[in-house]
């Protein structure tokens, strides 16, 4: 079997006669990876995922899942694949357990095997107590969990999640992160799209960025973040200031009397900044990133692409 969980070559998608969603992307995801596929709205992420999952017809190109060409044996490739779509896509009037067991049935798993598997996955996702509830009565977060349970019922080796935590509160989101880390550690390759870049930074080892139907970046998370030239920090002060202090080499602005924003480039030392602030008798209570590091990088890359 191929070392790649996913190999995409020259993938094109044109909607109608002139809306070009994908301009021929090439992408590989290694087995066991936790991979982020990022891009602004309308960049082509969902089209890519749709084509991989057989929800969208491709215009050209090839897709291989663990070396199996989807044009030659899509059913076999689908057995290895689990897809969590962006939109809720189960019957809202069915019971939670029925939805998961029925999904297993579509993969040829008999109910006698599907029931214990469903119990296991529903318990792990905290849905077992709601197994007899109609899906429409679940909260948004539980519906997202149900989507994941459904996608995992046939034990896929590659799991693709299209914005799985959209609209989910932070507590539930972190629980979901733990769960995804756990199944990745057990060997499931995961591809994730998300608008929460903190999520991608926390979870993913490798990353690709799509914009306007083209792959603008495909590298490791570590490598990408190391390319960040300037980072913005927010310093919360002990005493209020009337104006931003002037420290040579550091660009500082006063956000409010108790808060300073400072931009620190890659070759500058944060220690140096604190030494200088101490000399000016400015006491810093806490410090945090102005925005997520990946977010800064992402905005920079997308801007570059647009110009």
């Amino acid at each position, binding site marked *: 079997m191929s070392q790649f969980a996913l190999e995409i070559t020259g993938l094109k998608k044109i909607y109608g006669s002139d809306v070009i969603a994908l301009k021929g992307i090439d992408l590989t995801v290694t087995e066991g990876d936790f991979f982020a596929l990022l891009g602004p709205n309308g960049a082509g992420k969902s089209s890519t995922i749709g084509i991989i999952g057989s929800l969208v017809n491709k215009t050209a190109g090839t897709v291989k899942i663990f070396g199996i060409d989807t044009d030659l044996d899509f*059913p076999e490739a689908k057995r290895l694949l689990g897809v969590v779509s962006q939109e809720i896509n189960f019957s809202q009037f069915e019971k939670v357990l029925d939805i998961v067991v029925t999904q297993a049935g579509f993969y040829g798993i008999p109910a006698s095997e599907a029931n214990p598997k469903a119990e296991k996955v529903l318990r792990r996702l905290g849905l077992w107590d709601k197994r007899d509830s109609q899906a429409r009565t679940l909260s948004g977060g539980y519906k997202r969990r149900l989507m994941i349970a459904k996608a995992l019922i046939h034990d896929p080796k590659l799991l693709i999640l299209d914005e799985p935590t959209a609209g989910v509160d932070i507590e539930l989101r972190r629980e979901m992160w733990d769960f995804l880390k756990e199944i990745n550690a057990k060997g499931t390759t995961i591809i994730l799209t998300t608008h929460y870049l903190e999520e991608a930074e926390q979870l993913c080892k490798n990353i690709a960025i799509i914009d306007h139907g083209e792959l603008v970046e495909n590298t490791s998370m570590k490598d990408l973040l190391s390319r960040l030239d300037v980072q913005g920090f927010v310093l919360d002060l002990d005493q209020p200031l009337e104006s931003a202090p002037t420290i040579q080499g550091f660009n500082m602005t006063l956000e409010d009397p108790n808060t300073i924003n400072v931009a620190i480039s890659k070759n500058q030392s944060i220690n140096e900044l604190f030494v200088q602030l101490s000399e000016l008798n400015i006491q810093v209570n806490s410090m945090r990133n102005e925005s997520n590091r990946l977010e800064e990088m992402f905005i920079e890359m997308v801007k570059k692409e647009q110009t």
Partner: protein
Amino acid sequence: MSRKKEIFIALVTLTNKEIRRYLRIWVQTLVPPAVTMSLYFVIFGTLIGPRIGSMDGLDYIQFMIPGLIMMSVITNSYSNVVSSFYSVKFQKSIDELLVSPMPNWAILLGFILGGVSRGVLIGCIVFCVSLFFYPAFTVINPVLTILVLFLTAILFSLMGFLNAVFADSFDDISIIPTFVLTPLIYLGGVFYSINMLPEFWRNISLANPMLYVVNTFREGMLGVSDVSIPMALSMIVLFIVILAATSLHLLNKGTGIRQ
């Protein structure tokens, strides 16, 4: 596990899901045909029927029973598939099937079996209701009756499927049943023999496909028909083959379900 067995399990799962769907809402799906047909039997069979007299040598209520059963089978098998398949498109739960390894023919067959089961079940319910109003009813040719019952349910389930494939809104799934199916059924010999009509309208009626379905069923139940049975059966089978091939082609292309 072999692929054949996997496909069989998937097909049974989809069919069960379809059956569960209409049984869950039995007040909307199973009760109304029984109530409506009871009203037809009371008004046209018991009250007005005796004044009409005999039709093709039979009591009017007796003549009407096969037509009303067929009317119920046609509308229920059609509406089951059109509403179910359009709903899975609308709710996007069609994705559950598309991401699975189920072949398209098994998806089509699952929905059709759901429609056929409802059509046949309703047919049996209406037949039981008719026995309250005409207990002496006996079926002349049970084999032909059952054959036509199933063929009709398959044919109209396929029509419902095609309607749902092309439907973009809930309006689209009610237009054809309201403006095409219902008039054709009413004018297709459910309540009268076309031999009563002037020659011009009789000839026009021969172009109505419902006439063949209703009359073949009536031949099976009562032994009377306005049309040639071998020709009618051949037409029904031919239409089933054409519609099944078209439905499968559209599913393979992804019409209405894949962008």
